[in-house]
């Protein structure tokens, strides 16, 4: 865990509402693992007061990149940041994706901005020689954030790109790609999508990890603000510390 002001190297627009912020952060880059996140102070002012959590989207050398969708005040301020501006970042935080088990094929499921942590994950999975299939869905083609990845399938709610339907439909439709393989599923996206994925994987008995969200005040375990209910015991996990990545069997969404 580090806390530091970093210089912004680039702010790259991806779609109308999304962009990538890249900072130069050697120590943070060294410590980060796919699925972890950082908690970012969007301005030096007291409004917005709290930090905003964002997945670590990519690490390359000493550079760390976040992929961000504008949804409110804080992300709106971040969208306007320019090369040379400073950014106060707390991270890396939480537990990332488990990629050391014995699976052969990684199935990545992204809904909307949920694709954010996958560029970094893909890199690491490649290093380990895993096969990777990315199912990447969005509302429409304008909002779809395609990664430049060879094995990527897309869906859109309105059919303007890829399969018409949601990303779970896309998964269904392409079962044959992975049905007899030793797979592990990695999911990130909006709450309803994660619930559907949880069902899908529990029915199909697939090993699956999902990255979940919650309002957060601190991001590192001191406020108890980010509970998610355990599936096995009558207790809450903290999403920021015990997650944000959980085995989909372990939590009740």
């Amino acid at each position, binding site marked *: 865990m580090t806390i530091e002001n970093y210089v912004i190297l680039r702010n790259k627009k991806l779609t109308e509402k999304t962009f990538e912020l890249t900072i130069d952060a050697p120590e943070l880059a060294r410590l980060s693992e796919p699925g972890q996140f950082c908690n970012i102070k969007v301005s030096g002012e007291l409004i917005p*007061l*709290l930090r905003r959590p964002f997945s670590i989207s990519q690490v390359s050398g000493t550079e760390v990149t976040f992929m961000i969708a504008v949804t409110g005040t804080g992300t709106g301020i971040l969208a306007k940041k320019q090369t040379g501006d400073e950014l106060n970042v*707390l991270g890396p935080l939480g537990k990332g994706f488990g990629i050391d088990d014995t699976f052969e094929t990684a199935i990545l499921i992204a809904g909307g901005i949920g694709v954010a942590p996958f560029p970094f994950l893909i890199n690491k999975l490649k290093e380990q020689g895993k096969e990777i299939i990315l199912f990447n869905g969005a509302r429409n083609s304008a909002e779809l954030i395609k990664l430049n990845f060879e094995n990527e399938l897309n869906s859109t709610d309105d059919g303007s790109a890829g399969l018409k339907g949601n990303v779970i439909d896309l998964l269904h439709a392409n079962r044959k790609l992975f049905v007899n393989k030793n797979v592990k599923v990695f999911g990130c996206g909006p709450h309803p999508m994660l619930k559907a994925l949880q069902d899908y994987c529990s029915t199909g008995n697939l090993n699956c990890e999902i990255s979940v969200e919650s*309002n957060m005040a*601190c991001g590192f375990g001191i406020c*108890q*603000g980010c509970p998610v209910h355990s599936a096995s015991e009558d*207790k809450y996990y903290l999403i920021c510390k015990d997650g944000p990545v959980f085995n989909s069997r372990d939590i009740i969404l």
Partner: protein
Amino acid sequence: MSELDFTVKIGNKLTLKNPVMLASGTVGYGNEISEFLDLSEIGAIVTKSISLKPRKGNPPQRVVETTGGMLNAIGLANVGVEKFISEKLPFLEKVNSTLICNIAASSVEEYTECVKILDKYKIIKGFEINVSCPNVKDGGLIFGNNLEAVAGITEKVRVVTEKPVIIKLSPNVSNIAEFAKVAKERGADAVSAINTLVGTAFDIYTRRPKIKNITGGLSGPAIKPVALAKVFEISRNVDIPIIGIGGISKWEDAIEFMIAGASAFQLGTINFVNPKAAKEILEGVKNYCLQNNIKEISGLTGSYEL
């Protein structure tokens, strides 16, 4: 530097190396924040409220941001007194922190029981009695907004420990000074003020409260003027040491609380935003004292000019 006396006395029994304290519920049991702060350098750390049995806490969402502040309804999630002793105390001992245990309970007996159990641990330098949590159905504000209840709890806790007893007061009353007075009369060594203000927020599309518990406790810079007025009100009316809390985000705020009557102050919400705040505020307060030729920090307490 060597000339500046930074120690503060809170009543007769408690001396802190400096007035900076970490507020209950905003630093857990110290583990995580210690990555950013040397806890041995901080005046004191107050634990997350501890209850006799573990509490699961409220369902999500528990927190939401507001203008210059936040609402929380954690619901006193905590490991319980037993696990606190076995799992949390050793660390707090190891890092040489000055430890105050904050106690929450749903009955007078639970308060005294907790205090009795914890009383024998030397590292615990005092108890802060939380009679003012707005986010639980049992206890909480039913106690905190009731003069009799606060009197009863103070009295009963007083007899089971010789260590300093600090009553943490609710701001959701019209006459906080009367509560401080009752606390003093029944033997409290100090009061801390304030806990959070009752607040809420609604989602205008689902029409549901943004916090599952419906209401939450408002904290952060937004509440500072209210907290200062409460501290000042107690200070003018009751002769009891006050620990000031509420919306401190910079060293200037901390000085304001001392001027208004606080002997020490606690940092809450700001720890979430800047985990190094305690250290930075300590430095800022020191510089202010040096620049203004203040030799004893305690001289600031209640030094307002009207």
